[in-house]
């Protein structure tokens, strides 16, 4: 399984996190669902779906928190019989990013993912470009950027 990044500064923190936490799948994306790096995915369609769903889940829970008049939840965890999914936000110079982590319960645990997520967050913060101004994304640009990102993420 390979680890690939559209924005190279995310690569090293992600590689380290995957190794320590024993994660099976990871996406690092913006709040809008734009993927900056991925590990473990073999199909572009899966990346797009996971990114869209992950961003939507975070947006929904952010809204719930807002309605409860609370700051956004730090992290979410869903656990099944064999796998768990962990979603959490990270503040960086690139803006707020979301990490979506899927882990096998045989190989890892919520505790390990949380433990090493803290380090991932710190590493991403340290490595991120500072004071970068997010671009305005136009519809025409969006398709091209998505296509370029997917090509990078799958080594094409």
């Amino acid at each position, binding site marked *: 399984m390979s680890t690939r990044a559209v924005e190279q500064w995310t690569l090293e923190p992600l590689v380290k996190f995957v190794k320590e936490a024993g994660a099976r799948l990871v996406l690092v994306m913006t709040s809008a669902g734009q993927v900056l790096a991925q590990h473990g995915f073999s199909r572009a369609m899966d990346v797009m779906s996971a990114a869209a769903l992950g961003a939507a889940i975070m947006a929904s829970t952010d809204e719930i928190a807002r309605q409860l008049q609370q700051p956004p939840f730090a992290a979410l965890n869903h*656990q099944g019989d064999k796998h768990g999914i962990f979603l959490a936000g990270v503040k960086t110079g690139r803006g707020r990013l979301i990490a979506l982590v899927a882990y096998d*319960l045989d190989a*890892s*645990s*919520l*505790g*390990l993912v*949380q*433990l090493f997520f803290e380090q991932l967050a710190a590493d991403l913060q340290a490595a991120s470009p500072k004071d970068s101004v997010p671009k305005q994304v136009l519809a025409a640009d969006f398709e091209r950027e998505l296509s370029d990102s997917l090509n990078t993420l799958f080594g094409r």
Partner: protein
Amino acid sequence: MTATAGYGQALDLITRVGGVRGAMLVSAEDGIVVAEQLMEGIKGSAVAALAASLATRLRRAMEAAGVGASLFWHLQAEGGALLVVPTPNGILVVAVAEPDVNVGLVRLELLRAAEVVG
């Protein structure tokens, strides 16, 4: 007595043993802290996650070796030790200690705490 108060008392007895720097209850499956009494400088979430992970790996090795489920284990290091008793309901009773701690005494208190936890 509530479960939480019972846990607190059980952990208290462990931490009273000389050389013990902290004690906690950990969910073995998740590696998450259930209850803790730790000295300064010990990161409970790290202890929980790592102890649970090591417990899982050790359990598999012991089952493969045919010695059965683990009743107590002791990770020895130059600067300290981790002592753990797994309970039948998936909780680990964990003590973080100095390297020269009285292992027998800590083991006893961990086993007593395990009875309280169930």
